[in-house]
């Protein structure tokens, strides 16, 4: 198996990235001006109160020592304690993850169900045709409307007028799955718009790229039906860039869609990380960023493995020689 030739190297690379990010985030968090004591104890605090707080959370130790302690306990599954809630960081993440996951599932489902078919449709029409131009325009607008504009407008419309769905009062899928969907659908759709549009564009380009390959011409010459050609020749070969994009989008969504979560008041991971950053809740920020990185690295590895399975030539040419 050629897969076995490059996989160890890729795993090592992934590990290097994880260690690098852990050092990077640890250093960045410690170089933020002000600490938890400044934010929470405020201006009226005594030096004794600050010292007590520092001792309680091990902030009086040297920086390398703090880093090692964090990494070692993280390896055991202990990501530290939130200074704000005084609960384990893992508990805090566990209560927020279902919301972020819920949003991500809605957005990715819409992306796969709408974005890919739209891309195939526009990709297989002649380029000058009306439907093709329309498709390109729609997806161009889709990637050009920033989340914070769309989110704000949706919040305004749905909070000002009775349109059936309500903003806020978000229910976690972990509490009540059925009740959570109507409360997550609006932010989910806002997130999906960019994902759908970019997936449609990439799919269209990938399909166009495959259509001009000689083997497609050969299939046409053999008299195979159009649907069959699209399913068997085009989609299979166009799937790699689409897969890559969908994986990247998934990693992005699971890392927490900060702006959408903030504007829609969804207490998910993204808005939590921003809040923790403002409060200098060190353990939460460090572990949150590390978690997002792990998701990203795993998704990338997954894509590489799948790519290797779909088209062994690609993985060797692209990765094998200089990964």
């Amino acid at each position: 198996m050629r897969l076995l030739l490059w996989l160890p190297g890729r795993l090592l690379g992934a590990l290097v990235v994880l260690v690098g990010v852990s050092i990077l985030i640890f250093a960045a968090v410690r170089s933020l001006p002000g600490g938890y004591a400044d934010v929470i104890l405020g201006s009226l605090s005594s030096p004794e109160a600050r010292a007590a707080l520092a001792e309680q959370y091990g902030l009086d130790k040297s920086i390398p020592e703090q880093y090692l302690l964090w990494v070692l306990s993280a390896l055991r599954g202990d990501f530290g304690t939130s200074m704000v809630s005084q609960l384990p960081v893992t508990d805090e993440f566990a209560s927020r993850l279902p919301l972020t996951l819920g949003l991500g599932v809605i957005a990715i489902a819409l992306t796969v169900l709408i974005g890919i078919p739209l891309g195939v449709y526009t990709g297989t029409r002649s380029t000058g045709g009306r439907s093709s131009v329309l498709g390109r325009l729609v997806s161009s607008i889709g990637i050009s409307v920033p989340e914070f504009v769309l989110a704000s407008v949706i919040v305004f419309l749905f909070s000002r007028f009775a349109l059936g769905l309500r903003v806020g009062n978000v229910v976690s899928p972990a509490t009540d799955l059925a009740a959570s969907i109507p409360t997550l659908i609006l932010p989910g759709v806002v997130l999906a718009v960019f994902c759908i549009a970019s997936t449609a564009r990439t799919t269209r380009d990938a399909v166009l790229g495959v259509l001009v390959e000689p083997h497609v011409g050969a299939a046409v010459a053999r008299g195979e039906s159009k649907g069959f050609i699209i399913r068997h020749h085009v989609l299979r070969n166009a799937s790699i860039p689409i897969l890559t994009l969908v994986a990247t989008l998934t990693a992005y969504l699971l890392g927490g869609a900060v702006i959408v979560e903030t504007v829609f008041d969804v207490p998910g991971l993204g808005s939590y990380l921003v809040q923790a950053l403002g409060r200098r809740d060190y353990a939460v920020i460090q572990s949150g960023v590390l978690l997002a990185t792990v998701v990203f690295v795993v998704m990338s590895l997954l894509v590489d493995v799948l790519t290797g399975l779909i088209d062994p030539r690609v993985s060797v040419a692209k990765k094998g020689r200089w990964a």
Partner: protein
Amino acid sequence: MKRTPLAIGLLATALVLTACTAPTTESTAATEEQPGYLAVADPSLATGGDLSVQLDYDSVEANGLDPQTATTARSWTLMGLVYDTLVTVGPDFSIEPGLATSWDTPSDTEYVFTLRDDAVFSNGRPMTADDVVGSLQRLLDSKSDWSLQLGQVSSVQATGGNEVTVTLAAPYTSFLGALANTPAAILPMTEIADGSVDITTTMLGTGPYVVQDHVQDQSWTFGPNEHYYGAATRGPESVAVDIVTEENTRLAAIRDGSADYAFFNNVDALDLLGGTENARVVNQQNTDFYYLIINSQNPDSPLADQKVRFAINSALDRQEISDIALAGQALPTGVTPATLPGACPAADLPSEKPTTDEIKQALADAGAEDLDLTITLYNTEPALAQIAQVMQQELAAVGVNLTIENLDIGSFVDKIYSSSPSDIDLALSWYAGYGDAAMVSKWWNGDVSTFTAGFKANDPAQNALQVAAGSEPAGAERDATMVELCASVDESSELVPLVTRPGVIGYRTDSLSPTINTNEGYGSVLRDIVDYRMIDAG
């Protein structure tokens, strides 16, 4: 100062606009239903029901749920649902009975409290005089901010089965006002002493509610305290508090009725909700106020010169700051909060007198023309950026160029308090104003508030005035002292009070009949919650 043409223009346009537009019915600020109250609950309605509240942020304290060391108004509000204090604050900041049914003052340093005999902690144990003595002693020992506000207490003793005597080292007019706030709550001292309750993680009080659930930064669920002495007349049976950060979401909740009661930080909520059917929105005045730090402690800065600082202070127009930055809903104030009885009139402050030309002349005389200064603020209080931008315009008129630096709160506190002298020119923030005109001025007394040393000189004369304002009995003489104190603070121009910090409360008239006081001293937006009545209760 000194109506600028800008302010006059604004006033004129405002008048024209008012004449042209139909008044939005329910959004006017000062409609009181009764003196001292913006709203009064309908007592004929049945008790019970579930109240749903949305607030903008949650309580976050270094010592968790311990009320004695709690530093923010939000903590006082939420903890106040569970804990009671000896006395409470009524309309116009009169002191009313709480866990103490009455009190005598045999001398101006002695307070003898008679306790309720029916106060019971939510675990079923009746409150005793020992709980009161222990709680006050614990507060004094804690060296927390609020122990400073309690004044110099020489002893706290149980002098009878339900009588407690507090002796002060010196007369202190604000004493009862300080006792009325949540940090002076009566704690279950027996349980604390035997370790059966960790007061930093559990709330156990004699108040109307008990905590059933709390998810940090998301929600609180309060149920009834079955042992509450006022259970028979307690309004809502349960209170659900949702922490909703986004102002727009809270506005939506009042519009569509998914919340009964909500607090807004932006005074424009008055306008944004005005005209909503079945909803009422009111501007509640606070004793809290915004202040400007003008750092006098950096010897290399032109701001080390009092004349320069006073000129900058004089160039500010407090009324214009309120009109433009706070939709005209805030009140100009001196160091005694304008909303409190006996406060000095802000219009008479020395800095109100110089004209623009005189200010320019003063700056020129001090060799401080074309000053370039930076004003530092923090981004979780949007009004600060608005105020800073108005100041920028006002100071430009006297040749001072102001750059705005809007940091997150950690960087802000770090910049101001981590070095001495402080690493700032100007800075903006706000103080809670509390329930007596002399209380907040403690932060101007350098002997008490050592944390201001990085940007403010310790001035013995000012400290003496502050102590006098705190110890003289209410009356004309004390009022005169307050005027002197205000003038002294204004003249030194180091920590300059600007305008009060109003809050906006919105509620659904089809589900809730609340009691809302016109002036609030401790940011307690749910102060009279036991009087609230749910429309469809019972």
